[in-house]
């Protein structure tokens, strides 16, 4: 019989403990499929963060290290500088990457460190129970902004891709979603492209994935997908924010960066 579909060997058999409707499981699978497809599973080292995906080391079927909150880019730097031929990536959430680890993110990008960051932006601190994140939208309720985030009290959410795009260091920055099959396919393509650039030694790559957190948003999974589409993507426009010039020319126009109106 002809095999038309197989589960990736990039994941372990351990059942994931993420909440129903959460985006982490989908992204884990995409990351795993990408290093498997590129034939580098046995030459990949992943960095797990602090946050919901602190358990990523149990699910990703590769050599893994779990590090301190926000320090993934520094840890991946330490790995990559000593093992330049390996694929090194850091998997991080929004609190981890854009709040406590903002300096590490910015400087790894500025150094054009030849690592990849998989950045899950769900606008909330999930593991600790739904506190306000650096990417929490204005008006959005959290356990530490119970009446909704306000500019007066909390300032504005941080747009990571736009911020990093201002630097010379990054080679490839793209923002995607996993709210529908087309987004999942695009995310997969983006992760694979980032890994490929790293394997070619081009420099810093980051894929920001807008994701849903039904549990801490206090929504059903379907409602949470609607929020990603209707509230998150207008503030965090999808698209490519940085890519190598030669690839930019070769790419069809429809993938161009969407500018916020």
């Amino acid at each position, binding site marked *: 019989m002809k095999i038309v579909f197989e589960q990736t*060997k990039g994941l*372990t058999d351990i059942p994931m403990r993420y909440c129903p409707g959460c985006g982490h499981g989908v992204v884990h699978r995409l990351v795993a499929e990408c290093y498997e497809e590129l034939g580098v*599973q*046995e*030459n*990949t*080292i992943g*960095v*797990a963060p602090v946050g919901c995906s*602190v358990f990523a*080391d149990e699910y990703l*079927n*590769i*050599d*893994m*290290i*779990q*590090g*301190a909150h926000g*320090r993934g880019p*520094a*840890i*991946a*730097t*330490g*790995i990559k*500088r*000593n*093992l330049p031929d*390996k694929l090194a990536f850091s998997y991080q959430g929004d609190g981890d990457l854009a709040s406590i680890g903002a*300096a*590490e993110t*910015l*400087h790894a990008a500025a150094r054009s460190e030849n690592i990849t960051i998989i950045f899950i932006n769900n606008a909330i601190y999930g593991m600790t129970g739904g506190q306000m994140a650096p990417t929490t939208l204005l008006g959005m309720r959290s356990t530490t902004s119970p009446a909704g985030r306000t500019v007066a009290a909390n300032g504005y959410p941080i747009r990571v891709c736009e911020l990093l795009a201002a630097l010379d260091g990054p080679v490839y920055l793209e923002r995607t979603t996993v709210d529908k099959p087309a987004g999942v396919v695009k995310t997969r393509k983006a992760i694979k492209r980032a890994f490929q650039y790293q394997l070619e030694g081009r420099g810093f790559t980051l894929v920001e994935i807008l994701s849903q957190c039904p549990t801490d948003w206090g929504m059903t999974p379907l409602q949470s997908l609607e929020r990603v589409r209707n509230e998150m993507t207008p503030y965090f426009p999808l698209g490519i924010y940085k890519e190598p010039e030669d690839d930019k020319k070769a790419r069809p126009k429809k993938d161009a960066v969407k500018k916020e109106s």
Partner: protein
Amino acid sequence: MSERILMKGNEALAEGAVRAGCRFFAGYPITPQNEIPEYMSWRLPETGGTFLQAESEVSAINMLFGAAAVGRRVMTSSSSPGISLKQEGISYCASAELPIFYANIVRGGPGLGNIAPSQGDYFQSTRGGGHGDYRVFVMAPKSVDEMANFPRICYDIAFKYRIPAMVLADGILGQMMEPVTFDFDPVEADSLSIPDWALRGSKPEERRVVKSFDLRPGKMEEWNYRLEKKYDEIKAEEVRYEAINTDGADLILTGYGTSARICETAMAQGRKEGLKIGYIRPITLWPFPTRIFRDLAGKIGKFLVVEMSLGQYVEDVQLSINGRSEIYLHKRPAGGIPTGEEVLEVAKKVLSGDKSKFYV
């Protein structure tokens, strides 16, 4: 073995680490340790190693966390406030059992303090320093020659027991120049075997995980007992100290690092004058040489502790002596540096029955 050369303390420490196989350094500028990263910035590339000036001390220690996890001999250095920032990462290394080597060239504190020599970080160094139940191996050199040779011992211990190991020095030891002889052959870093726990990429069935936590009920308690077993072994096997003229002494002078050097001067002058003064100097601050103090407690009436801090080192002496001899304390914090004459004068007072420096 090598020839005798004149070197500055910080540079001797850096060169000692390179000769001991260090091939990765990440650090951040802070006085009085800047000569270490400056030296490493040209010396490591010569050996095929990597020097990185990190964006912060926090980032530097986490670069080490990653680099140590792939099995490299790694180093960072800083001075007091910078070491405070590194403590979380050091705690992670201790829990994940990653061997790292680092140096604290102590300055005056608390807060930003000053850039003068001090021994105010004794507690921070010997009690773990960061959060959780852990210890690090701590060596206290008293000369530039020891600055040059202690990194090799630290790497040996760090890899043997998979723990962080450090050199605790101060601005005097970092900044002064003295003759140095490296007492070991340079380690060929590329010929060192890669530890079996190191992350190198692997087949799924052989994959390795480096982590510092276990949330399953009871498992972290087991984890801590496993670390404790190792610490007990280090306490039994790895204590180092110097003890001179202790037989029949009326008074023992004791201090570590720069203070030990000053105690030696005071002892030498005192003995010239016919006073029966001995001297004990811990070389490892953790594990602490408890036994030598315990053996002499009750036999020698008086111990005079000299430290460049407000009574930190004295607590370990007190715990070892446990009330069986009198302990006196001469202390100078945050840039106060006692002289040999000053210490000898205090010693004479103590011997004559003066209680003004009585501690316990």
